[in-house]
Every structure is written in C-alpha cells, then in structure tokens.
C-alpha cells in the first residue's frame, strides 16, 4: 500500500467533525435535532442554546459524523462569552478541540440578508462550508422565490434548501455531508487595501501546527477588530499584542471608520447575492405576526394579555395538577403500607418507610406541577411570546438598571437558577452579568414549589374557592421574589457594580407554532431530570437524614425488647437525642425569633443542601415522631404541637417560613454553578451570606411584626 492511499484510508476511518452555526431563531436547534435525533431544547428566544451540544449524525453510507451545535450568533466578532465559545471552537482555539473539519451554516431564507452576513464571515474562515437554506416554506408564503442553485454558483459552496421543522431536505443535506471533497470559498468580500495588508502581516502570529492560512487570517482579523479591553486580547502574549495594537492604530489613522467599512463591504456583497437569487412573485401582505402583535403588543391589551398569560399559568399549576397529585399521593401511601407490612418491625422498616418512601415520596408528588410549569415555559419560548414579554417589560428592567438580556436568565430561573445562571453568558459586560447572577436565585425556582405548596396547604385548609386563594398566595410569593431580584439588582448596579447603562437590542422573531413533539420531549427530559434527582440526591439525603434523626438513640433503648422499643420510638426523644435533633436544638436560638421550633430548624438546616429537602425532612421528622399517623404530610403538619403545647405551624409561622424560602439561597447546585461561572469563591459566598441576611431579616419582620399586630 502506498503512503498516499494509507493516509486516505486513515482519514476515511476518522470521525469527521461538523460545526453547526447560524443566527438565533434560524431553526438551528430543529436542524440539530433532525440530524442527530438528540433531545434538546427548541426555543424561539435569542440565547436559548448556551451550552455546547454535540450529537452524532450518519452519512448516507452509515458513517458517523460528530456534530457540534454552536450558540446562535449574528456575527463572528465576539461580544459575549457565548459568542466567544463559538469563535474559539471554529478557530480551534480550545485545548484538545481542533478546528472542525467543516461547517454547516444554517441560513434563515425568510431573513436572508442578516443571515448571509454571518455566512460571509464563516466563508472567510477557509473551512469547507455547506449552506442549509431553512424556512423555504415561509419564503414561499411571503410570495418570494429563492434560486438555491444560482446561490450555490455565486457562493461556490453547496446550498441545500431545507425545512428543518418538518424534516424536509435532510436527506439532501446528508448527501452533501457525505462528500469528502467539500469546497472552500473565502475572499468573496473585497476589503480596503490597508486592512488586507495588516491581516497578511499579522496572520503568521496565528498559524498553528496543522491549521490553514485562511484560518490564521480570520483570527488576525478577529483580534484586529476586538475593542481595547476585550477579554479576547488577554489571551495574547506581549509581542503579539503589541503588534496587533500597532496595526490597529495605523488603521485608525489611515482608514477612519475601518470597522464599519468592513461591515458595509460584507453587506454590499450580500446585497448582490440577494439581487441575483431572490424573485418576488406576489405583492407583500401583512404577515400573521403583524396581525397578532397588533393585539399582544397593544398598549392596553398587551399588558392585559401578559397578566392573563402569567395568571393562567399559575392558576393551572394549581387546578389542573391536583388529580395527578392525588393519584401519586395514593400510590405512595399504598407503597408505604404494603412494604411496611412485609418488613419486620425495627430499624430497617423505619428506614424504608419513614426514611426513603416518606422522603422521596414527599418530593415526587410535585412532579405534575413542575411538569406543568415547564410545559408553559417551553410553550412560551417556542412560540416566540417570551421575546414579546421581554419587550413589554424592558422599561421596567431599564428603570432598575438591568440589562434587557437579563430577562431571559431571570425568567429561566423561575424554573431553576442553574440554567438561568448559565444563560447569563449571553450578557456582554461582566458587571451586568454578575448583577444578574447575584439576583437570579431570588426568582422562585421549581424546588421552592414543593415547600410553598405544603406550607400554603397547611395555612389554608381545603374548601370552597380555596384554589383561588392558594393561587393568590403563590402568585404573591412569586412577585415578592421577583421584586427582590429587581430591587437588589438596582442596588448592586448603583453601588457594588457600577457601570454604563446597558443596552437592549433584541430581535422579535416571527410567531411560530410550537412543535408539540419537541415540547413533549423537553418535558420528558425535565421529568427525568427531576425524578433522577429524587432517585439519587433526595434518596441519599433521605437516608442520611434518617440516620441523623435516629442515631444515636437514647441509651436505654438499646437494652429494651421490641415492644418497648416501639413505645420508645413514639417518644419524640429519639429525635431529640439524635445528631439532627441536637444541632436543631443548638441552632434553635438563631431561628426562634423567626417563629421556628427546633424541629423546623432541623428542616431549615437540611434545606441548605436543596430546598425541596425541607419537605422530605419534615416528612421524616414527623414520621419519626408520630408512628401512628398515616394521613398526608399536610394533615400531619396541621396537627403538630410545639413543646409548649401551641400549634406548631401557626399561620404566622407558615408565612415566616415561606418568606424565608423566598429570599434564602438554599441550593448547593446554585453555589457550585456560581463558583464555576464567576471563577472564584468570592461571589458565591457573598451571595450565600447576603441572601441569608435578607431572608432572616424579612422573616423576622414578618413574624415579630405579625405578633405585634396581634396575630398568632
């Protein structure tokens, strides 16, 4: 075998990597799903895809291809950490991640010019490119025709018309991806001579082993265009940085406004392509989006609609989910009863029934409500309404001094602060990003929901029209959290993290029908994550908590026979002498001013691992202390008494507890993700401390104020 054919055999067996890139809202995620079948979020909101996602597609011959789904971006000149990732991957700047073998650039045909702008930048990388021309159906409906063949001829790379949402054109795209001779086509856009010269001079600085010259030139152009103080420049060594700065100074002198000239040159080329390939065969009609927005963005009806959407969302979380929750509750009760009947009396039975089933079951019961919440959020995202909500609320955000883009992370934090904090990567300035991260956990996440639901139910016994009152309380808790986030955002923005007023430039994408398939798949994913959490973290914590609550036993219990031991277990002193009970007693003075007894203090301490653990801890505590009771947790809580004989969960205590949960940062995962995103322990610890201080003070005011006003 000759050396050349051996080499080609090696290339044949190596898995090729394609990077998938495109504008936000171009249908990139749908295409990624269609190509890989991998489950992933389909959103209509700019900046949903933050995490780097990867999947495997197959060529027509069954060969695997690695596909990297890059964050959606309008440009390759990075302005946010999100766009940095994109450029780093494309240029092969990440350690252990060589530049991709080829790029699939998805172009929204219904928004051709802006999408082609990004394409011209991608082509200049000198990598093989396939253009996936998406939304051809929308173009047709608007009365336009696009000549893909001619476009391919002009651009010099394959152009494949597709409808990603319907899976049309995917086979043709696969055929194109199977080609091993994909062309490259840099240099379409002529730049002013001084820029070309500067890039040529600087390119050798960026030639890496194995990388081609166009890639180095693209990198040189990128660094040249980076503003002074951009974090991209920090990655350069002294001499290279000096040469970049010198070249930029010279350009500033020789070609004033050279940056905008680069952009104008690209758009001039884009204009030529559009003129040659797009034909209008029908007059322009007002689109459906325009007609819908006339109402949904109306000065009066728009706000009414926003309130109705949010109110309906919270109401349905309460009313629609109830039958499912009752069913799960019944199943858990049945499981506990039948397993309890099989096991002999003793520690093992107690561990299984009171520890694991009560602890895990107490959290699983909230699955229907959490799924309901995610269903609505997913629906709002994939239809495009979320961007409208941001548009309506921006004035408010602006007054607070928050970035318009903070809205998505904050809204995502209603589900969970962890993805919310990760979504802040779309914010350009580090200060604005940090403010958003610091206040995001105030948004009511789904882990608070179980706690609120139990406490609301304990506060208001079921009865006529209770759903309205309960929904009202829940809505106020959500509003309290939101107001806290905004107020502290304003405070931090004006004191600790002063900076220029942020801008709000955002695309309002056309309304699209949600794809039920992807919404349900997303729901399935969310449900699985929640159940996995319940099956692992909550399961483990339940066992640990059970041990901490049952050991060490009172000394005399060891020698007693089984019958007396049961009597002993009924005695709350088992909890009292245990590790958990002792720490609860020890810390009781801290929480007593808030109206919590030592048992609740045990729950509060445990909830700093994760908020919903509070519910499972209460379930375990009161099972431990009250063997006879077989009713639901809420009924058990309502019947509890303090050591002094007063009702344990008085309305005021319930309120004080809810307020504490509104403000406190009780989530190890959030602390960990803040540590990762800010790259220091300083901010997560600061956040933990200030949120605890706020929570404690607010609960103190509620409880002591309530008592002064004469409430119990």
């Amino acid at each position, binding site marked *: 075998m000759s050396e050349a054919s051996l080499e080609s055999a090696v290339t044949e067996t190596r898995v090729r990597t394609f990077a998938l890139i495109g504008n936000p809202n171009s249908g990139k995620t749908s295409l990624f799903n269609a190509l890989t079948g991998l489950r992933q979020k389909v959103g209509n909101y700019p900046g949903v895809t933050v995490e780097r996602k990867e999947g495997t597609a197959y060529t027509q011959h069954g060969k695997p291809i690695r596909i990297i789904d890059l964050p959606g971006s309008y440009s390759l000149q990075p302005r946010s950490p999100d766009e940095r990732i994109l450029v780093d991957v494309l240029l092969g700047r990440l350690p252990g991640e060589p530049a991709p073998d080829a790029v699939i650039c998805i172009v929204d045909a219904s928004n051709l*010019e*802006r999408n082609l702008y990004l394409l011209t930048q991608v082509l200049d990388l000198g990598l093989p490119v396939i253009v996936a021309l998406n939304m051809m159906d929308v173009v047709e409906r608007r009365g336009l025709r696009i000549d893909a063949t001619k476009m391919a001829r002009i651009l010099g790379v394959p152009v494949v018309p597709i409808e990603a949402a319907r899976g049309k054109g995917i086979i043709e795209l696969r055929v194109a991806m199977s080609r091993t001779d994909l062309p490259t086509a840099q240099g379409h856009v002529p730049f002013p001579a001084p820029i070309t010269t500067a890039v040529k001079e600087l390119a050798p600085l960026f030639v890496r082993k194995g990388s081609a010259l166009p890639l180095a030139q693209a990198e040189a152009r990128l660094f040249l265009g980076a503003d002074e103080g951009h974090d991209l420049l920090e990655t350069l060594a002294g001499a290279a940085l000096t040469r970049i700065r010198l070249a930029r100074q010279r350009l500033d002198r020789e070609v004033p406004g050279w940056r905008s000239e680069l952009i104008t040159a690209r758009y001039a080329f884009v204009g030529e392509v559009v003129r040659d390939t797009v034909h209008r065969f029908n007059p322009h009609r007002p689109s459906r989006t325009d007609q819908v927005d006339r109402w949904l963005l109306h000065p009066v009806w728009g706000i009414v609609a926003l309130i109705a959407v949010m109110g309906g969302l919270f109401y349905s979380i309460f009313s629609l989910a109830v039958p499912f929750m009752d069913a799960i509750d019944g199943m858990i009760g049945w499981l506990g009863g039948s397993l309890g009947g099989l096991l002999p009396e003793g520690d093992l039975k107690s561990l299984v029934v009171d520890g694991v089933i009560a602890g895990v079951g107490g959290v699983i019961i909230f699955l229907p409500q959490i799924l309901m919440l995610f269903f609505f959020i997913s629906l709002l995202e994939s239809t495009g309404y979320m961007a409208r909500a941001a548009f309506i609320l*921006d004035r408010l955000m602006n007054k607070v001094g928050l970035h318009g883009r903070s809205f998505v992370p904050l809204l995502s934090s209603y589900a969970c602060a962890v993805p919310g904090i990760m979504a802040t990567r779309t914010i350009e300035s580090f200060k604005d990003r940090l403010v958003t991260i610091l206040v995001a956990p105030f948004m009511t996440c789904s882990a608070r929901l179980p706690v609120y639901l139990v406490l609301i139910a304990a506060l208001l016994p079921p009865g006529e029209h209770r759903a309205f009152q309960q929904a009202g309380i829940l809505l106020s808790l959500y509003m309290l959290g939101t107001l806290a986030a905004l107020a502290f955002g304003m405070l931090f923005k004006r004191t600790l993290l002063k900076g220029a007023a942020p801008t709000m*430039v955002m*695309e309002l994408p056309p309304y699209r029908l949600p794809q039920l398939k992807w919404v349900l798949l997303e729901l399935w994913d969310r449900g699985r994550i929640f159940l996995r959490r319940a099956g692992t973290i909550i399961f483990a914590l339940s066992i640990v908590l059970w041990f901490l609550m049952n050991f060490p036993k009172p000394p005399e219990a060891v020698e007693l026979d089984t019958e007396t031991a049961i009597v002993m277990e009924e005695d709350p002193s088992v909890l009292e002498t245990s590790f958990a009970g002792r720490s609860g007693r020890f810390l009781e003075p801290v929480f007593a001013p808030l109206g919590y007894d030592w048992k609740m203090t045990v729950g509060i301490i445990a909830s700093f691992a994760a908020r919903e653990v509070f519910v499972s801890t209460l379930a375990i505590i009161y099972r431990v202390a009250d063997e006879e009771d077989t009713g639901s947790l809420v009924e058990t809580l309502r019947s509890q008494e303090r050591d002094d004989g007063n009702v344990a969960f008085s309305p005021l205590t319930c309120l004080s507890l809810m307020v504490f949960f509104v403000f406190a940062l009780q989530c190890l995962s959030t602390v960990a993700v803040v540590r990762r995103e800010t790259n220091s322990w300083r901010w997560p610890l600061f956040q933990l401390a200030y949120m605890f201080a706020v929570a404690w003070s607010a609960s103190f005011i509620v409880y002591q104020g309530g008592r002064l006003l004469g409430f119990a």
Partner: protein
Amino acid sequence: MSSGITCLSDLKPGQSGVVSDFVGANTIHLRLMELGLLPGTAVRCLRTAPMGDPLEVELRGYHLSLRKAEAATIAIQTA
C-alpha cells in the same frame, strides 16, 4: 409630511425612512450595523412598547427592538 432629517426615535408608528448616519461614538453602532442597520438601509417604525420604551422597528424583512436612547443616535432621512 415634510421630508427631512429626523432621528429613529422620533419616527411615528407606521412611518418609514432611510438611515443616513450614526451620531456620536457609541459601541452599539457597530452591533446595529452588523444586524443590518447601515447608512442607506430602509427602516419602518412599527410601535413603541406598552410602557413607552423600547421601540420595535422593521428592517431587511425582520423585526428588531431597541431603546429610545439608542434610537435617538441614529439619523433618519424621511421621504
């Protein structure tokens, strides 16, 4: 309506014009240019948000929202 120079934030809903220049130094300008808002580009004001800010404008077949403060730095030639 008389023709002349105004700024993007002063366009009435439904009114259109052509971008003639950017006023002052603002980092947002390069970003807007990358989004296709260049001197010579036709824009139409669609509406202001219910609370009076930001604006929604149409350009190159898509909808963009930006705050009035930024729109005020964009000079518009009206027909």
